[in-house]
């Protein structure tokens, strides 16, 4: 019995990991209609930044774990946000006026640039972070239990909280209103006095910040990372976002959970060999019957 529950828990954890990264994809698409393919790489960079800041903080003699983590988390979010801002300015803003394809290609190019930049700057080895958070919650007996580590529980909590906070911001705050206005009709929003450039930059920074939170938590969970994790995570998270309905924040979370659960349950009860085939097959099936994803809204064409 506990094995089944554990597999469900595994799926929820994996799903939250995908969801955390998918939120960044979906937010950017929701506001400016563009898939930021470099988002996976921003997540990868935040993992490296986290490790670097952690080492620096240790060097300065900060021994307390919560303080060290808090400081590195803030530092990582800030610097990753800067990366997001710069990438938007350099690779996407100049292409705002051109065809829909141009920013997409630029994003793919940016993603390759970042991968190779990190590979050259930090080397191609597996990097690791010391296991500082080692606690587990175990339910059941000594030999037959279901468990979730502290970090994994935090991932699920943060993913849901982030989704809640961002949905609140988009729907209830002036900033959110500006975002929605920019998404609905950029020219009109500009005419009405909304600085759409600033709004878009802010959305990218928030997206990068979310990637940073994901990077920190996921690195704490797995312990090791390399310059290529962005690509793999990016594909899965993008799939999760599309599955749930790209542009919808709850959709990103739902898509992530569906993907994570299907992977875990298939690996756990059928075979690990083809779990990706199953997961992507599921995506295709969902899209055939609901082309805009599970929670997606059909695009309204204004005549």
């Amino acid at each position: 019995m506990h094995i089944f529950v554990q597999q469900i828990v595994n799926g929820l954890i994996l799903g939250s990991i995908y969801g955390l990264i998918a939120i960044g994809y979906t937010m950017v698409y929701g506001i400016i209609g563009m898939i930021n393919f470099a988002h996976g790489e921003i997540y990868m960079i935040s993992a490296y930044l986290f490790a670097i800041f952690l080492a620096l903080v240790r060097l300065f003699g900060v021994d307390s774990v919560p303080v060290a983590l808090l400081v590195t988390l803030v530092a990582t979010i800030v610097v990753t946000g800067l990366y997001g801002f710069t990438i938007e300015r350099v690779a996407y803003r100049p292409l705002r006026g051109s065809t829909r394809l141009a920013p997409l290609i630029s994003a793919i190019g940016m993603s390759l640039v970042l991968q190779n930049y990190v590979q050259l700057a930090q080397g191609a080895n597996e990097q690791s972070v010391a296991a500082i958070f080692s606690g587990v919650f175990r339910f059941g007996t000594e030999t037959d239990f279901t468990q979730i580590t502290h970090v994994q529980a935090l991932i699920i909590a943060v993913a849901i909280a982030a989704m809640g906070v961002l949905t609140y911001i988009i729907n209830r705050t002036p900033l959110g209103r500006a975002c929605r206005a920019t998404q609905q009709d950029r020219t009109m929003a500009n005419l009405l006095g909304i600085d759409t450039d600033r709004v878009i930059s802010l959305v990218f920074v928030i997206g990068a910040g979310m990637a940073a939170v994901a990077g920190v938590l996921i690195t704490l969970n797995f312990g090791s990372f390399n310059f290529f994790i962005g690509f793999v995570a990016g594909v899965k998270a993008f799939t999760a976002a599309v599955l749930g309905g790209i542009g919808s924040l709850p959709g990103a979370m739902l898509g992530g959970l569906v993907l994570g659960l299907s992977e875990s349950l298939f690996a756990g009860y059928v075979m690990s060999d083809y779990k990706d085939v199953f997961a992507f097959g599921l995506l295709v099936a969902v899209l055939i019957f609901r082309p805009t994803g599970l929670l997606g809204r059909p695009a309204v064409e204004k005549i």
Partner: protein
Amino acid sequence: MKRTLVILALATAGALGLVSCERKPDTIKIGIAGPMTGPVAKFGEQLKKGAEQAVADINAAGGVNGKKLELVVGDDQCDPKQAQTVANKQVEAKVSVVIGHFCSSSTIPASVVYAENNILQITPASTNPQVTDRKLPTVFRTCGRDDQQGDVAGDFIANKLKPKAVAIIHDKTTYGQGLADATKNRLNEKYKIKEVLYEGINQGDKDFSSLVTKLKGLKVDVIFFGGYHAEAGLIVRQAFDQGLKAKFVSGDALVTDEFPQVVGKPEAAKGVLMTFGADARKIAAAKPVVDKFKAAGYDPEGYTLYTYAAVQAAVAALKANENTRDGKKLAEWLKKNGADTVMGRKEWDEKGDLKTSDYVVYLWTEEGGKLTYKEL
């Protein structure tokens, strides 16, 4: 505008022409190909350092028939497609011999290119049987084969670990699945032990919690993993976290101190078992070279000395054959004469495999706060 373009074009052509006129001193080119970047770059580093030291030592001793050696480095990232590109580049650079590659899935396609161009190839680390089983005349190894490794692993698991439930996991690569299959065959045929689970994971995956939970459910007490250290380390760590009390056995791709680093927790990495050749650093003939490495601040772990030995073998063949680039001729000479290397005397059979194999089981233990592997 047109005039500026013409002048610019002429200037560029001139500059390029000057570059190609550069005369290089006459050297013998030794190719070294391996994963210099990518997930197993740590092993590429072992190969490169081994080759560099060998070339430096041989050049200091006068070179080969008066000519100095020069290394031509190729990076295949442990990717079969890149390996083919690297092989073509090495052929174009007119190398006399190629030492490489590392991953069996790279060595095999590359060997087709080298064999077609009659270039001697010595791999220091590719252990999949198919590397030499295809009977290409110019392919050699200074390491063992996975069927030998699988036998040693299978024997150890059956005799020493006496498992109640064995799981065999691989990473679907040529090397990983090959090694897992070799161990599986040994256990099935000789000991009639049937594994409770035989599954493949993907290289690059990070989350193995479902697999670990499944292993827990099957009450597995021995896991044999065929694959590389990045995935092995994660499986070990996640198994430890979930409280799976099983012995973890794997092969020679864990022979790097990056493995315990990926595991991250010394208590989890302790007790991991792996098969590998006899520790080259302990061989008497290797002492002066090992000291040289250590003086330069590098511990020649894993396949470093295997690569050094491969270079020595190639050079022995070149010396005796007037630096010919004819791979078949060098290959015949090596099979007939063998070579004295830093790892002792090496002799090869008809297929290019070493005549003697020396796989043993190692245990990762904690010593003085650091994790090292000791022969059992």
